[in-house]
C-alpha cells in the first residue's frame, strides 16, 4: 500500500471522526455527509483488500460511485428549498440507479475489470448541475453570515471542484487505456483531487452549525 493511499485513508478517517465529534451540532444534510465519508472509507478499504487478494477491485468503484451519489443527492435534497428541485433530485436517484444496473450488468462489467466511467461521467455532470443550482439559491437567499463560515458553501465548492476536475481525470484515464501512458500523472492527479475534496468536506463539517442554518431567508 503506497503512502499516498495511507494518507488518503487517514484523511477520510479524520474527516469522519470530526463529523462524529460535531454530530450533535450538525444539521441533517451534514450528518448524511458524515456517513458518506464513512462509506467512502469502507469502499476504499475494501478496494485495497480486493486489489491485493483478487487483483480486481472494479466492483468497489461501481458501488462507491452509486452510494456516493445517493448520499450527496440526499445532502443536496436537504440543502435545497425548491420542491421542484427536490423532486428532480429524487427522480435522478431512480434514473441513476437504473443506469447503474444496466452499466454494471451489460456495459462496464466489474468481472472484466471495467471502471464505471459512464456512471462517473453521468453523476459528476449531475453534481455540477446541483452545485450551480445551490450557488444560485445561495445568491437568492443570502444569509447574514460570512460566507467562509457557511457549511453549504464549502460542501458545494468541494462538489463543483471535484466534479469538474473529475472530467479531466476521466480524460487521462481514457488516454491511459488507449496509449498505456501517464499512469503516474493520473494517479497523482486523481489522489490530489480526492485530497482536496475531502479537505473541503472537512471544512464544511467544521463550519456547519444548527444555529446558523435558521438564518436562511
Amino acid at each position, binding site marked *: 500500500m503506497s503512502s499516498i493511499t495511507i494518507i488518503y485513508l487517514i484523511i477520510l478517517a479524520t474527516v469522519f471522526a470530526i463529523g462524529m465529534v460535531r454530530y450533535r451540532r450538525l444539521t441533517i444534510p451534514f450528518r448524511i455527509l458524515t456517513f458518506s465519508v464513512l462509506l467512502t472509507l469502507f469502499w476504499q478499504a475494501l478496494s485495497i483488500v480486493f486489489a491485493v487478494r483478487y487483483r480486481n477491485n472494479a466492483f468497489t468503484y461501481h458501488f462507491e460511485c452509486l452510494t456516493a451519489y445517493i448520499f450527496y443527492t440526499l445532502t443536496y435534497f436537504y440543502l435545497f428549498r425548491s420542491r421542484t428541485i427536490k423532486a428532480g433530485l429524487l427522480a435522478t436517484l431512480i434514473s441513476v440507479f437504473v443506469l447503474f444496473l444496466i452499466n454494471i450488468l451489460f456495459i462496464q462489467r466489474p468481472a472484466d475489470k471495467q471502471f464505471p466511467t459512464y456512471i462517473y461521467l453521468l453523476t459528476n455532470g449531475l453534481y455540477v448541475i446541483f452545485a450551480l443550482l445551490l*450557488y444560485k439559491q445561495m445568491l437568492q437567499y443570502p444569509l*447574514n453570515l460570512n460566507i467562509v463560515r457557511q457549511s453549504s458553501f464549502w460542501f458545494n465548492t468541494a462538489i*463543483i*471542484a471535484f466534479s*469538474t*476536475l473529475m472530467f*479531466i481525470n476521466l480524460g487521462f484515464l481514457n488516454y491511459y487505456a488507449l496509449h498505456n501512458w*501517464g499512469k503516474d500523472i493520473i494517479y497523482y*492527479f486523481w489522489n490530489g483531487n480526492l485530497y482536496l475534496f475531502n479537505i473541503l468536506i472537512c471544512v464544511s463539517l467544521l463550519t456547519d452549525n444548527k444555529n446558523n442554518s435558521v438564518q436562511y431567508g
Partner: protein
Amino acid sequence: MGNENIRLVVLSAALLFAVVITFVIYFVILYRARQLKNKQEQDEREAVYRQEILKTQVEIQEQTLEHISKEIHDNITQVLSFVKLSLGSISNTLDEDKKAKVKESRELVAQTITDLRDLSKSMSFEHIIQMGLLKTLEKEVERINKSDLVKVSLLTEGQTYSLGEQRELVLFRILQEGINNALKYANAKHFKISLQYQADLFTLTLEDDGSGFSPDLLNNKSGSGLRNMKNRAVLIGGDATIESAPGAGCRINVALNPFKQLYADGVPHPNSLS
C-alpha cells in the same frame, strides 16, 4: 507521448483548476455584494417600519391629548364655572367675614379655570395648528412662567415661515417633552428656547441649566423620553442632537430642512418643492 503532450495535459488540467478557482472567487464576491444589498434593503424596510410605528404612536398620542383637552375644556372648566357662579350667588347671603373667604375661593376657581383652559389649549393639536408654532410657543412660555417653577425665555432669529402643521405639532411636542424633563428630572431654573429660521434650515434649540445627565442615559431604558425626541425629529425629516453631562445642563438641537419630505412613506410636506 512526447514532452509537448505532457505539457499540454498538465496545462489543460491547471487551466481547468484555475477556471474553477476563478468561478468560486467570483461567486464569493457576488455573494458578498448580494449580502450587502440584502442588508441595505432590510435596514430600509426596518426604518420604514419603525417610522410607521412612530407615526402611529404620535397619532394615538395626539388623539388622546385632544380628548383630554376637550374633556378639560368642555367638562371640568364648565363645572368649575358653575361652582364659581354658585359661590357668587351664595356670597350675598353671607356676612362680611365669610364673603371675603368666598371671594377668595371664587378668585382661586377663576384662576384654576384660566390655567386649565391654557393647559387644554397646549394639549389640543387643533389649537396649535390654528395658532402656529411661534404663537403657541409664546403662550406656552407665558403659561409656564406664570407657574414660577422655571424661568423660560424664547428667542427667534430670521424671517419666520410655516413648517407645515404636522412638523410644527411635532416640534411643539418635542419642546413640551424637553420642558417636562427639565422640570421633572433636572430641577432646572432657566430654560432657553431658540428658533432659527434660515432659508434652507430650521433649527430649534432647547437649553437648560439643570443637573444634566451622562450621555450613556440615551442608551438606557430610562432614556426613552430622550430617544423619543430623537425619533420624533426623524419622523419629520429632521435630526436631533442631545448634549449633556452631569452638572452641565442639557442642550437639545433639532435641525431640519423645511423643504424635505415629511414622512418616509412618501407623504409630502405641504411646503415640499417636489
